[in-house]
């Protein structure tokens, strides 16, 4: 038998057939692209959420640094801290007082001295960041209502400049997010650098210590410290 006679007749394909054939040819290419895309997306999502790189990446809908104000001491998420409460009930600080936890840079309240027209916002932490914003709380000291030494520092050229006009007996008002505390200036001292421990030393009674560098008009790194020691007179906790 002739070989040519065994050959099947060529089958002509329609336009639709050609399109289907082309589509079938394209399918593996498209599947490869889809697979590569899903794989890439998976790797980037893993890097964003699970890998060590995740600490360097922020969420699109959040600011560069997460606002930690909404977290309580246990780390659980909660509402943002309440603004300074005006409605207060007269109470004595006692053992049942629960002082809130403040993160670094979080505002604790406002310190005012009417006699010198000083009003300074008080923040947790005494790093440069807090000292740029107001008075910084030494986090190793206590907070109002905790029956101990409460230490705040600020710059002599700005926020604590009015301290140079404070006199013994002046009233210092400390409005915190959990209550209002009134102190009276007991002593003003100029301390040399080796006497710094007097500022931070523990006290049995509640004491508010405000300090800054001294002399006030010194050009350069001022060598001494100007400290104002105050005793607690009255406290009103927010209801």
């Amino acid at each position, binding site marked *: 038998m002739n070989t040519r006679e065994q050959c099947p007749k060529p089958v002509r394909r329609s336009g639709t057939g050609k399109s289907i054939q082309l589509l079938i040819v394209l399918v593996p290419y498209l599947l490869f692209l889809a697979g590569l895309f899903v794989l890439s997306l998976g790797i980037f999502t893993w890097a964003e959420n699970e890998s060590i790189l995740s600490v*360097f990446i922020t969420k699109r809908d959040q600011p*560069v640094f997460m606002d930690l104000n909404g977290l309580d001491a246990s780390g659980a998420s909660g509402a943002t801290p309440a603004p300074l409460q005006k409605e207060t009930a007269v109470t004595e600080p006692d053992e049942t007082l629960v002082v809130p936890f403040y993160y670094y840079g979080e505002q604790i309240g406002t310190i005012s001295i009417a006699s010198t027209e000083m009003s300074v916002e008080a923040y947790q932490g005494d790093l440069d960041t807090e000292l740029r914003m107001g008075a910084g709380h030494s986090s190793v000291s206590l907070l109002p209502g905790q029956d101990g030494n409460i230490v705040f520092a600020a710059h002599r050229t700005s926020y604590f400049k009015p301290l140079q006009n404070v006199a013994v007996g002046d009233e210092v008002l400390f409005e915190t997010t959990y209550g209002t505390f009134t102190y009276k200036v007991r002593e003003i001292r100029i301390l040399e650098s080796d006497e710094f421990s007097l500022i931070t030393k523990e006290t049995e009674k509640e004491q508010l210590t405000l300090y800054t560098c001294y002399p006030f008009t010194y050009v350069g790194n001022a060598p001494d410290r100007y400290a104002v020691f105050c005793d607690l007179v009255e406290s009103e906790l927010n209801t």
Partner: protein
Amino acid sequence: MRNVLKILASVILIAVVIVSSIAAVFSYYIRCDLLSSEFYLGIAADSFYMEMVKHSIHLEFESQSSYVGIPVEVFDAALDDSQLHLMLREHIESAVNYLNGLAPYTEPEYPVELIRDPLYAYLEQTAKEQGTVPAKEQYAQIDLVALDSAALIQKYICVIDLNLVKDRTAFQSVFHYLPNSKDVYIPAILVTLGAIALLALLNGKDWRSGLNRIMTAFWLSGSILLVPMLALQITGLTGRLSIETGYFKFFVDSVLKDMNRYFLLWGALLFLVGSVALLLLKTVGRPAAKDSGFRPGEYSVNNLSDK
């Protein structure tokens, strides 16, 4: 058997084309951008960048000012724009030369006298107003403040502070290969061309199959470069780095965006060339017999090619 070997050789050559072409693209990127001082100087030449650096220095000066009782304006006045630009150029060139293995890394220094002189002037003016004469200790204090301020400026100018990382093992292991990797692109291109030539030779007179395989290799290389870069762009990771310092974020963002753009461009180029060529090969000028489904010799008793 011969056909199997031919297919196996084609697959290997396609893989060689993919790997070498991607290696060439990477190496050229390292040469032209990552290890090129012109690239970094281009970013730093942006007036926005220098403004951000100056703003960061100003914030540090504000803090410094609060501690030392000297108005921040006195510090700001000590900042000399041309000196800052010169320092930045010196720093980038030194860092890039070090990364290229050409010279040891040295940090540029801001001339202390540029800060000290205005501070002395302020000290003397304040003393005059107070009717006093500045003490020697105060001059010594000012010297310290000027040194601190110069160090602050240096900190902000040195955007790639290699002193922090250059002795680390991880950096050293990368650094060992970095200068050589920028020259890999020429051998990589030669290997690509060689593999393409071999693919063409392997397919002999069947130039369509040869071209099909070459273009498939290009298409795959393009996809491997293009698709991850598209995914990166969709996730927007390059713009979401948690860097607080404005000028540094601008710098890192610029580098990453440039990298993203570069690979997108090369990926798109290879992908498009491969796609268009493959589509043309599959649709235009196909032999009528093949188009109709006829396979010459397939039904022939004389066909011994597979035996």
